[in-house]
């Protein structure tokens, strides 16, 4: 009996032997750090012409962490009802110590996070890092993109200002054109037939509970998969001499340098360009001129604006929605469609397609800003 016990202790890096080495060793013996340490020690980052892009994922993660921290802080003062939401954000901006800073950082960091996420995604796309065996990493990444857009859309409404009010009316009306489930989906989003205080409360629930919960799971899988497969090397670098950098501490320290720069940038942006609050939403006022959604929805907004009312006998809107849904599905399933990349061959068709998509988004966003 005693022998068995001893053997068990030995197999989990016995506390007996660790006790001598202080608190660190004491914990190591009890929390199973050994496997994490082994993983960290083994992790390396390939060095080549495109290594710079490896920083974008970590940068997005850092900005996400900023979102979590500032979001929790805002939660302490924000009130999710049509009567109080606008006033509570006003209170945060004017009365709470550093409230302007926390809220402005939350808004700026949200926008920078979407930006780094897009850059991260397109570099992964163009380097074909989604190819076998990293299909699931790509799929979880695209799901994180959708979740981030949902975060952006739901968070935009929370200050309950008139721009956000009409953006939400438009945004939640769009799925209505889907035959069959459209009506149900619209009511599900709005919490009723119209955009009201019920919508605000619901979006608040999405923004601070449901989306964070789902994101935690998907992000956990995404990060686990990155560790499991290691960093992808671009196809062109496969044959060349393998040069690597240790992740810990070499790459992480460089990561942290980038994060510090991002933190300084956020503070500067928040101080120089505090996020505007606008005017309180009035459901019985006409939509204000110059209304537009956040920049990352501009290309789809502009597309809907340019589509004529009817194309043949189909409503232009429906065609737009079908098009964007098909595009999103395509994007999600890219690794399974790009058979050449899966075999380790160059796939110029997908590169060209990616360039066209980037051009389309850039041109439409540009038109959206100028018009």
């Amino acid at each position, binding site marked *: 009996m005693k022998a068995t016990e001893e053997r068990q202790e030995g197999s989990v890096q016995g506390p007996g032997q660790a006790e001598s080495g202080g608190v660190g060793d004491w914990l190591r013996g009890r929390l199973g750090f050994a496997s994490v340490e082994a993983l960290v020690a083994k992790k390396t980052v390939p060095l080549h012409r495109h290594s710079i892009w490896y920083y974008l994922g970590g940068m997005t993660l850092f900005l996400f962490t900023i979102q979590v921290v500032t979001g929790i802080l805002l939660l302490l003062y924000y009130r999710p009802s049509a009567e109080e939401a606008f006033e509570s954000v006003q209170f945060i901006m004017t009365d709470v110590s550093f409230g302007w800073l926390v809220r402005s950082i939350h808004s700026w960091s949200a926008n920078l996070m979407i930006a780094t996420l897009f850059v991260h995604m397109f570099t992964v796309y163009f380097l074909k890092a989604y190819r076998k065996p990293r299909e699931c990493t790509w799929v979880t990444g695209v799901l994180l993109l959708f979740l981030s857009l949902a975060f952006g859309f739901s968070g935009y409404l929370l200050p309950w200002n008139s721009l956000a009010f*009409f953006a939400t*009316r*438009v945004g*939640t*009306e*769009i799925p209505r054109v889907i035959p069959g489930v459209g009506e*149900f989906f619209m*009511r*599900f989003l*709005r*919490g*009723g*037939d*119209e955009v009201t205080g*019920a919508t605000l409360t619901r979006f608040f629930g999405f923004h601070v509970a449901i989306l964070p919960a789902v994101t935690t799971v998907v992000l956990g899988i995404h990060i686990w998969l990155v560790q499991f497969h290691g960093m992808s090397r671009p196809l062109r670098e496969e044959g060349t001499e393998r040069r690597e950098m240790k992740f810990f501490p070499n790459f992480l320290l460089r990561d942290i340098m980038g994060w510090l720069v991002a933190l300084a940038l956020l503070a500067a942006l928040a101080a120089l360009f505090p996020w505007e609050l606008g005017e309180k939403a009035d*459901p*019985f*006022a*006409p*939509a*204000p*001129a*110059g*209304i537009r959604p956040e920049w990352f929805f501009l290309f789809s*907004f502009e597309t*809907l*604006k340019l*589509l*004529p*009312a*009817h194309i043949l006998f189909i*409503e*232009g*809107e429906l065609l737009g929605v079908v098009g964007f849904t098909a595009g999103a599905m395509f994007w999600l399933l890219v690794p399974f469609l790009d058979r050449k990349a899966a075999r380790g061959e160059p796939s110029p068709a997908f590169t060209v397609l990616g360039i066209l998509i980037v051009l389309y988004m850039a041109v439409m966003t540009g038109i959206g800003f100028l018009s």
Partner: protein
Amino acid sequence: MRSTNETSSRRRFVNYLLQTSIGAVAVSVFYPVLSFLTPPRIAESAEATVVAGKITEIAPNTGKIFKFGSKAGLLIRTPSGELKAFSATCTHLDCTVQYRGDLQGIWCACHDGHYDLNGRNVAGPPPRPLDQYVVNLRGDEIIVSRG
């Protein structure tokens, strides 16, 4: 041989029971949750007429938004002095339209939709005309009713 068959068919039966029970538990959990997420229908206000304002308040070539139950309506006075009322909800994507004196027409700011003085969609993405209401005068009060 026979006993193996018997065991495997028993096992299949037990598995079947287990899986259907898990399915039943899942349904009994998800059905209430999904129903909870679907907002209840609130009866529309049955108001058929509303006082939209006074004739003295509205000059020719202007418009104003009025409350029609829970929705917004748009009352306009054309350059020739005629009164008209429409639903203020753009038929494209649910924004609230406004009267533009400089365009002598109704305009939606969200996606640049244009309607003429009869509420007909004349430019931009709106797929249908605005719903029109009936306007009557009672003294100097403007009464709007559903057609």
